[in-house]
C-alpha cells in the first residue's frame, strides 16, 4: 500500500506559507462593503454613533423601553436610498472622550459622531470634522417651505455649533434641561413648601435631614459624578456670583443672560480674561462659590464623593433622598419607573441665593439647561476620504426633517426638538424649555469647555478633594489658579488669534 499523504517537510512548508498568507491578509484593511456579496456589494456605508439615540433591543433588566426610532427611520431611508447602508455604532459605555479622540486621531472614526458643542473651540483646527456651512446654506430636500437647511432650525440651536472661525461644524437638533426633582409626598408629610430662596431651602433641607432622609442626592465620584454635578453647580453659581463682574470679564462689554449659546463668554474671551487678571480662581467670588458648595454638601449623602453616579437616581427613586438634580433625559424613566411609589414634582426654579446668604447674591439662578443634548453630531473628515460625505449629509438632512427628528426625540423621551416646526413634540418636556427661555443659560463658559481637557480634569479632581475635605478652599483656589493660567497660555500659543477680541 503506497503512502499518498504529505511529507512532514511539505506539510510544514504549506502550513507556514498558509499561516503567513492568512496573517498578511488579516492585516490588510477591508474596503467598505467588502463583506457584501452580489449587488449589495455596491452599497455605500454610513456609520453613525448616535449616543443616546442608538437603537437597541429591550433587555430583561430594562425598566423602560430603550430608543428604537432610528431603526424605523433607517427603514424609511433605505426605501428612498437602497444603495446606502446605515450602521449604528453601539453605545460607548464609558471613556467616550478618549474613544472619540482615538478614533479621530487614527482616522477610523464613524462618518457621524456625537460631539459636544463646548469642545469645538479646542478641536476645530485639527481637521477632524467638516465645515457644514456649504450644506446648511442649501435647502434640505426633505423639508419644504424653507430657503435653507439652516433655516429649518431655531436660530440659537443651529448657531451653537459655530467655531471661533465663524463656521458651523455641528448639527445640533435638540434642547436639554435639568431640574430639582422632589419627593412631593415627603415634602407634604413634613409640611414643606417649594422654597424660593436659598435660606428657605436651607431650612427645608434641615427639616428633611432631621426626619432621617437625605435632603439632596448627588455624587462627586470622578466617574460620572463630579463631571456632571460639579459642572452644573459651578455653572449656575458662577453666573450669579460674578453677575456684577460680567462686563469686566468680557473686556468691557455687558453680557446679558440669554438662552442663545453664542452670546455668553466663549473660550477666547475667558482666555483673555484669565490672561488680563479679570477672572481668576483666587477671586473672592470664586471663593464664595466654594463656600456655598461646601455648606450645601452637608445635606448630600454620606460619602457622596465615593457614591457611584447611578446611585443618585436610585436613592431618590427608593425614597432615601428627598430631592435629586436630574435631567430631562430622565423624563421617561421617572414617568415609567415602577420603583417610584411617591408623588413627585420639579422645582419651577432653583431657590435664589439672596444677599441674606451671600454678599454677591440677589440675582436668580439661570436654568441649568441648554442647547444640544443627545442630538449633536459632527461629520468626520473620514467621510470625505471614504467618498460618502454626500450620503452622510443626506442622512442627517433626512434625520433633521422635523417629523423625523421629533419621532426620534419623542421615542427617547428626554430632549425637546430644536427645529422651528415642533408639531407633535412631547409636551412633558415643555417645563425644561420654558425654564431655559424664561431664565436663560449661564454666561461664563462652563469649566468643561472653558480651557483645555487637562484643565477640566484637574478642576474635577481638585473639586472632589475640596468637597471631601481633603483640600481647603485656599489650597483649591491656589492650585486652580495655576492650572488656569497654564491652560490659558497653552490655548493662546495654539490660537494666537484669540489674543485680541
Amino acid at each position: 500500500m503506497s503512502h499518498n499523504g504529505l511529507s512532514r517537510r511539505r506539510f510544514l512548508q504549506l502550513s507556514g506559507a498558509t499561516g503567513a498568507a492568512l496573517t498578511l491578509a488579516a492585516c490588510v484593511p477591508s474596503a467598505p462593503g467588502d463583506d457584501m456579496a452580489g449587488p449589495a456589494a455596491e452599497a455605500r456605508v454610513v456609520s453613525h454613533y448616535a449616543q443616546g439615540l442608538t437603537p437597541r433591543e429591550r433587555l430583561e433588566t430594562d425598566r423602560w423601553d430603550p430608543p428604537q426610532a432610528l431603526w424605523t427611520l433607517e427603514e424609511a431611508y433605505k426605501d428612498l436610498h437602497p444603495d446606502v447602508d446605515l450602521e449604528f455604532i453601539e453605545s460607548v459605555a464609558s471613556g467616550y472622550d478618549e474613544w472619540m479622540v482615538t478614533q479621530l486621531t487614527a482616522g477610523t472614526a464613524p462618518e457621524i459622531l456625537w460631539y459636544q458643542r463646548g469642545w469645538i473651540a479646542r478641536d476645530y483646527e485639527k481637521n477632524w470634522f467638516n465645515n457644514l456651512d456649504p450644506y446648511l446654506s442649501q435647502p434640505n430636500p426633505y423639508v419644504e417651505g424653507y430657503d435653507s437647511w439652516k433655516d429649518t432650525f431655531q436660530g440659537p440651536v443651529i448657531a451653537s455649533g459655530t467655531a471661533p472661525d465663524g463656521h458651523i461644524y455641528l448639527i445640533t437638533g435638540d434642547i436639554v434641561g435639568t431640574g430639582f426633582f422632589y419627593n412631593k409626598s415627603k415634602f407634604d408629610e413634613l409640611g414643606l413648601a417649594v422654597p424660593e430662596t436659598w435660606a428657605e431651602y436651607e431650612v427645608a433641607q434641615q427639616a428633611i435631614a432631621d426626619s432621617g432622609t437625605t435632603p439632596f442626592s448627588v455624587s462627586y465620584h470622578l466617574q460620572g459624578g463630579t463631571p456632571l454635578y460639579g459642572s452644573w453647580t459651578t455653572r449656575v453659581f458662577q453666573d450669579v456670583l460674578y453677575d456684577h463682574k460680567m462686563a469686566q470679564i468680557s473686556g468691557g462689554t455687558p453680557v446679558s443672560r440669554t438662552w442663545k449659546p453664542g452670546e455668553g463668554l466663549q473660550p477666547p474671551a475667558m482666555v483673555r480674561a484669565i490672561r488680563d487678571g479679570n477672572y481668576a480662581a483666587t477671586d473672592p467670588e470664586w471663593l464664595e462659590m466654594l463656600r456655598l458648595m461646601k455648606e450645601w454638601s452637608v445635606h448630600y449623602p454620606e460619602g457622596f464623593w465615593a457614591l457611584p453616579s447611578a446611585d443618585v437616581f436610585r436613592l431618590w427613586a427608593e425614597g432615601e433622598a428627598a430631592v435629586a438634580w436630574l435631567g430631562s433625559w430622565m423624563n421617561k424613566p421617572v414617568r415609567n419607573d415602577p420603583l417610584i411609589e411617591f408623588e413627585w414634582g420639579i422645582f419651577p426654579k432653583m431657590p435664589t441665593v439672596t444677599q441674606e446668604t451671600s454678599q454677591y447674591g440677589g440675582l436668580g439662578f439661570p436654568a441649568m439647561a441648554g442647547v444640544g443634548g443627545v442630538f449633536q453630531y459632527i461629520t468626520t473628515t473620514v467621510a470625505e476620504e471614504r467618498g460618502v460625505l454626500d450620503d452622510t449629509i443626506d442622512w442627517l438632512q433626512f434625520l433633521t426633517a422635523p417629523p423625523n427628528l421629533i419621532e426620534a426625540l419623542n421615542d427617547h423621551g428626554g430632549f425637546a426638538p430644536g427645529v422651528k416646526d415642533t408639531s407633535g413634540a412631547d409636551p412633558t418636556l415643555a417645563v425644561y424649555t420654558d425654564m431655559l427661555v424664561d431664565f436663560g443659560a449661564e454666561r461664563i463658559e462652563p469649566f468643561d469647555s472653558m480651557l483645555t481637557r487637562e484643565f477640566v480634569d484637574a478642576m474635577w479632581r481638585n473639586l472632589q478633594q475640596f468637597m471631601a475635605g481633603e483640600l481647603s478652599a485656599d489650597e483649591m483656589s491656589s492650585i486652580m489658579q495655576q492650572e488656569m493660567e497654564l491652560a490659558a497660555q497653552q490655548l493662546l500659543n495654539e490660537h494666537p488669534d484669540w489674543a485680541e477680541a
Partner: protein
Amino acid sequence: MSATLSTPSTGQSAVARPRIARIARYRTAYLWLIPTFALLLIFNYYPALSALYHSLFQWNGANIKLFVGVSNFVDLWNDPLWWESFTHLIILTVALVAINLTFPLGAAAMIFHLWNLRAAYFYRVLLVVPMVVPGLVILMIWMFIYSPNIGLLNQSLALVGLENLQRFWLGDFKLALYAIIFVGFPWVAGIGTLIYLAGFQAIPSELMDSAVIDGASTWQRLAFVELPMVLSQIKLVVILTVITAFQNFTIVLVMTNGGPGTKTLVPGLHLYKAAMAYNRMGYACAIGTVLFFLTLVLTYLNHRYLRSSVEFTGS
C-alpha cells in the same frame, strides 16, 4: 599582490557559504519564524521606536508637530502628577512583588507537598479555572464587593457587628490605593502559582531523597533545598510582576479612574490620559519611554543581583 588581496575575500566566502547553506537547510523553520517576527516588528518594535522618536516632539496627534528636543522630559521631571503617580507605582510594585513572593509560592509549595496526586491535580485545576474569567469581569466583581452601600464587604462587616469598620473603600482618600492592592485576594489563582509549581516539580527526586536521608526537616528542605531550586522561577515571577505593575493601568482606569482626587493615579494612566484625553501625544511618548527604560533597568538589576550562591540546575 592580487593573490594577497583576494585572500580575505576567499576567507569571508568560506565562512558565509556554510551559513547560507545552513539557512537553506533550515528554511522551513525560518519560514515559520517570518510571520512572528513580522508581527513583532510591526506591532512591538515599530511603535516602541516611534514612541521614542515622537517623545522629542510637541505633537497633538493631529495638526501640530514641533520638534522640542528633550522638553517633554523636562516637563515630566517638573510634573507633580508624574511624581505622585510614580510614588503610587512604587507602592503598588513593592506590594505586588511581596504578594507574589508569598501567597502563590506558599500555595504552590502546599500543592507540591500533597501526597495524594489526584488532590494535587484537583487543586491545580482549581487554580487555573479562574484564569479563564475575563479580567474585566473580575474587576467588576471587586467593584461590587467594595460598593459602599450594597457591597459585599460593607454588608459582611455589618452582619458581624463591625459597622465601625465600614468604609467607602474605593472613595477613601487614604485607603483607595490599598483597596486596589487587595483586589484578587488571596492572589493564588494566577500564573505565578503555576510557574512556582512547575519549578517545584522539576526538582530532581534524588536531591529531595538525599535531604530526607540527611535528616532535614520539612522546613529545612523548603528553605535549603526547594526554594534555592526554584530561584529561577522566583526571578521570572519578580520580573513579570514588575513589568506588569509598570505597564498595567486597567485596574485603576476601571475601578477609580485615578481617584479619589489623584490618590490612585499611576504613570500608565497618566500616559493614557495625556495621549487620549489631552492630545499630548509627545508627552505621553516621553512617559512611555521613561517607563520602558525603568523597566529595562529593573529587569537587568533583577537578573544581575537576585542570584543565590547555591543556584542549581535541575537535570
